[in-house]
Every structure is written in C-alpha cells, then in structure tokens.
C-alpha cells in the first residue's frame, strides 16, 4: 500500500511536469492552430540551460528563472519569425517545427553531450521528509514540483478566466476570425501565448531535469506525453490539459512501475479509448 501511495505521488509529480509542458502546447494550438512539434525540444533545452546556470552559480532558483526567460525569448523570436512567415499552412508550420527539433537537439548535443544529466536540488529541497498519516518518506523536491505546478495551474486559470487577456485567448480558441473581426489584436495575443508556452516549457525542463533527468530523446518522450494529454483532454482546452496531465502522468507512472515492458503502450490505452469514443477529446470542442 505504501508503495502504491508513493507511486501515486510519483505519478502526480510527473503529471505536474507534463501539465507545465502540455498547457502551453494546447493553448498555442488552441489560439493559433500551430502544432509546435519542437515544444519538447524547448523543454529539454530549457532544462540544459538551467542545469548549466545551476552548476556555475549554485543557485537553483536563478537557473529556473534563466531557463524560463531564455526559452520565453526563444519562443518570442520563433513566433515573430518562422511561425509568422508560415501562417499560410498548418502543415508547413508543423514540418518547420519538425526541422527545428533536429536543430535544437543537435545544438544541445554539441554543447551538453550525450550523457544523461540530472539537475541537483538545493538544500532542503534535496532532502526527504516523512509524510503525515501514511508515514512514507518522500523527497521534498517532488512535493515542491507538485506544489509549483498547482500554483501555475491556478495562476493560468485566473489569467484565462478572470482577465481581459484570458478572455481574448479563450475567445480566440473558439473562433479566432470572429475575434479578429471584432478589432481585438489577435496578433499580440498569439505572440503572448506562444511566448508563455515556451517559457513554461523551459521552466518545466529544469523541474523535470531534477526527477526525470536530461537526456537525448527526453524531448520526444515529453512531446509524446504532451501529445497524449492534448488528445485525451482535447486540443486547445486548458481544463483538458489539467485532466489529461493527471491521467497520463498516473498511467505512465503505474505503467513504468508495474508493466515495465509496456510502459509506452499502456499510455496509448486512454488515447485509443478517447479517440474511439470522443475523437475531439474529453473536454475538447467540436471543430477545434
């Protein structure tokens, strides 16, 4: 039982990291219809940058901030150049971001090499505590990740539901032509969302680097998780990203723990079920 609870906590931690990556992916798709296949590569690059900053300054939070800001800047740059140039076709954008994966991965390989790296947590976060009631000894770092992702989720929810920018983004997900026709600066909203998505991915890279490690291929793993989330939750749905992340995080973790040979295949079960029963995703809208 204790092991099961620990596994569940691990799954929730993983879900937290997956949520940070997939929420940006799904919002970018929702408002811009851009399928950014390089989102996983941005996650990994952010993790590597955070790793280097932490190694040289010994300051975990500085690394977290630098990685997030650097990836936000990368996102801003990409949105203003490549994505803008390719607005005519969704498939062209998708293929260009596929090319971007090779570039980012290769550059990361050149700088950080092919050996797996782990981001070290500072002081208290690097230790473990005994959890109340169950008496399980659990790493503080994982609890921290869980807490941070909940805070980010609440903040994003507030941003989307309670602010003008959020209203524009939600309206853009529903009908971006109409929003544009109403005189709203959709262009600016696109840039903001894309930048925010990349920023969150870079942020998640450092957090993910503490528990999952940073390794070649880590980007396609995370991309797969994010894609599974958006299929299950519904492309463009923020609430769907929360629900999907929880589901995928737990499924992946239980799968890895209890069916090691089929960890990836188990992940596909909810995906297939959702596709067959509700192709637009659990919380997705039709036509999106």
């Amino acid at each position, binding site marked *: 039982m204790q092991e099961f609870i620990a596994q569940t906590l691990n799954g929730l931690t993983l879900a937290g990291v997956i949520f940070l990556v997939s929420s940006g992916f799904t919002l970018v798709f929702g408002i811009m*219809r851009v*399928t950014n*296949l390089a989102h996983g590569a941005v996650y990994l690059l952010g993790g590597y940058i955070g790793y280097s900053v932490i190694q040289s300054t010994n300051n975990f939070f500085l690394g977290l901030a630098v990685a997030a800001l650097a990836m936000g800047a990368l996102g801003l740059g990409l949105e203003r150049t*490549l994505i803008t*140039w*390719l607005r*005519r*076709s*969704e*498939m*062209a954008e*998708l*293929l*260009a971001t*596929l*090319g*971007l*994966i*090779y*570039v980012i*991965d*290769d*550059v990361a390989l*050149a700088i950080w090499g092919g050996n797996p790296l782990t981001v070290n947590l500072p002081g208290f976060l690097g230790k473990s505590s005994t959890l109340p009631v169950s008496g399980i000894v659990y790493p503080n770092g994982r609890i921290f990740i869980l807490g941070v992702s909940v805070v980010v989720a609440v903040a994003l929810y507030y941003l989307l539901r309670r602010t003008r920018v959020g209203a524009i983004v939600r309206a853009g997900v*529903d*009908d971006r*032509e109409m929003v544009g026709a109403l005189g709203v600066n959709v262009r600016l909203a696109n840039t903001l969302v894309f930048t925010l998505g990349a920023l969150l991915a870079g942020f998640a890279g450092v957090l993910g680097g503490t528990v999952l490690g940073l390794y070649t*291929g880590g980007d*396609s793993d995370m*991309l*797969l998780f994010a*894609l*599974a989330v*958006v*299929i299950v939750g519904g*492309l463009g749905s923020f609430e769907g990203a929360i629900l999907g992340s929880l589901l995928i995080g737990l499924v992946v973790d239980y799968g890895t723990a209890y069916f*090691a*040979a*089929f*960890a*990836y*295949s188990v*992940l*596909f079960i909810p*995906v*297939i079920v959702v*596709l*067959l029963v509700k*192709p637009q995703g659990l919380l997705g*809208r*039709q*036509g999106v």
Partner: protein
Amino acid sequence: MTAGGPPASAGATTPARPGRPAGRLTRLTLVILEQSRRLTGPVAGVAAAVVLVLILQGNGFASTLVEDALVYAIAAMALDFMAGYAGMVSLAQAGFLGVGAYAVAIAENHFLSPWAAVGIALAVVLGAGLALGIVAVRTKGVSFVIITLALGQVLYGLAFQWTGLSEGDNGITVASLPAIGSFDLSNPLTLRMTVLAVFAVTALLLVLFTRSPFGLSLRGIRSNEQRLAALGYRTSLHRYLAWVIAVFFAGVAGILYVFVQGLITPTTMAFSANGFLVVMVVLGGLGSIWGPAIGALVIVLFQQEASTYVTRWQTLMGLTLIAVVLFSPGGFWGLVRAAGRRRDALITRLRGGPAGENGPATTAGQASGAGQAGGPLALETAHPGTEPRQTP
C-alpha cells in the same frame, strides 16, 4: 543520380525573344525543347536504372550507400503516396519499417525458415496496419500527424521496453537469408539486385496507384474532402486504403532492411527516424513519388558519409527542411516541375502562341501538383475559413 534531369537547361542557353518571326535557330530550339519534353522522363529513368545497376555491381562504399538508400526510398515513396496524395503525413512510417524488420528477426530466432519469416512479417505488418489504421484514419490533417507520432512512439516503446521479445537496446540479429537454388540472398550481389528490383516494382506500383481513379480520389480528398464525400465517395475508406498501402510497403522496406543490415535495433524506429522519413519526402517533394527516392539518397548520404566530415549534419538537415518549407514547398521535385513548366511556356512562346498561357500539353501531374497556389504543402487546412465548424 539525376532522375528527371535538368529539362530547362537546353532552353536556358538559347534565350528566345518574343514577337520575332521564327528563324532557323528558333525552330531548332523549338524542336529540341519539344523532344526534351517527350524524352527527358524516359531517358532519365533509363539512365538512373543503368547507373544504379552499375553502382550496385560494385562492392565499395557507393554500392552500400545506394543499397541503404533504396531500402529507405521504398518506405519514403510509400509515405509520400499517403502524405503527398491523401494529405496524411505520418510520423510512424519508420515504426512500421521496424515492425517488418523485427517480425522477420523474431520469427527467424524462433527457428522458422527465412521464407516463412518473410511471410509472417508481411502478415504482421499488414495486420498492424489494418488494426492501427482504424484509430489513425479517424483523424485528419494535424491531428493525424499527432496520432501517428504517438503510434510511432508506442511501437518504438515496444521495441525498446519489451525486452523479452525484442532484446531491448541490443537488438536482434538475423543469421540466415532466404534462398531458392542459385537465387541466394546471402550473396551480397543477389541481395542488392533484389533490393533494386523491389524498389522498382514498388515505385511502379505506387505511380500506377496515383494515376488510377483511386489515386485521383485521394487527391480530391486532399484538396476538399467534404466535396468528395458529397459526391458519394467513401472518403474514410479511401484514406484507410492509402494508409494500409503505405504501412505495407514500410514493412517490405523493413524486411529488406534487416536482411541488408543483419541487425535491427530500436533506434531504427525512434522519433528521429520517423522524422527522417518525413524529411526525405518533404525534401524530395511531396506528391511526386520519385522525389522522396532522391530525398532518401540525400539523407542516407548525409547520415553515413557527411556525418564524418560535418559533425553537425542534423543541424544542417533541420535548417534545410525549414528552408524548403519556407522557400520551395514542392521540394526538389517541385523545382524539376517548375523547370518543366518554364520549358512548356517557352515552347508556347516560340510557337507564337498567346503569352502567359500554359502550354496545352501540360500534363495532368504537373497541373495538379505544384500548379496550385500553395503548392503541395497547402494541404486541407490552407483555408481556415472553409473548415467545418460546428460550434454551437
């Protein structure tokens, strides 16, 4: 390899001035151009075949390279059949190549004869394609890419994690190759010629498919599925068939792959490998069948040779893909087609026909492919306003 040749080079050296009465030079140019329109394709095809056979006779580096490229070309052309004609860009093609390869290797390691292993592999790939197609074909456009990406990763995950069956990271070796009498695939020359023959048969079959009513309906589906459905076509069945065909040939390529390499590992099915096949198709030219074969040659050349000189060849490849998507969406074959169109326009002008009009002899393939405004990349989602929208 210069299949397709440079058809416009003849015209480029003799610039023609419109409005002039046809002199001897103009008439000669016209004859050359018209003959080139008729002959470029067949001549280039025969030349390519001769060059390939000559290279494959050898035992050196070039012959190994071409052999590997031909194996990938089979999978890439099949992917193009699905992606370029039906608009279904799959990121699982290398996964199915791996399924075919693993099926052969596993069957052989269970003491089956090589021929039985080949039969089983074909059946397994066909079965996998039929079953997974039910899920994949439910989606279109970008969602299809996402689903196939996930499918491909699951296949990779099985090869990587199901160590009881796949030996995990170590991969599986294949010891014995099929043989009947003097036809023995363990003879490298026989194997290379067999690869070439399978490549040729695949290419011809795929070209036949694209020219059949079925191929035309796929193009219709790519440009406007609603309209085709309204005309009474069972569009999802057509797309399902295109998927099964593409998957089947990926499996065929996989069987050849494991015989050529003697080893299959999960890396062959990794995300980057799935991406490589898409890159081959896009660089070569979506919707051209022959272009992806050239794309396969270029990528395999890069992978095996340039990687020793250009350490960051993947950066180069990624940037090339982005550049192609930005500036030449038709890929290499798009350039060939554009050259062909320039030649046709030149012919029309030299004949004194109305300027600016397409030559009457523009072939169906040229008109339907790169002739559209957005090129082959303008798949079904090029007009966001016309998407079906059922928001309440």
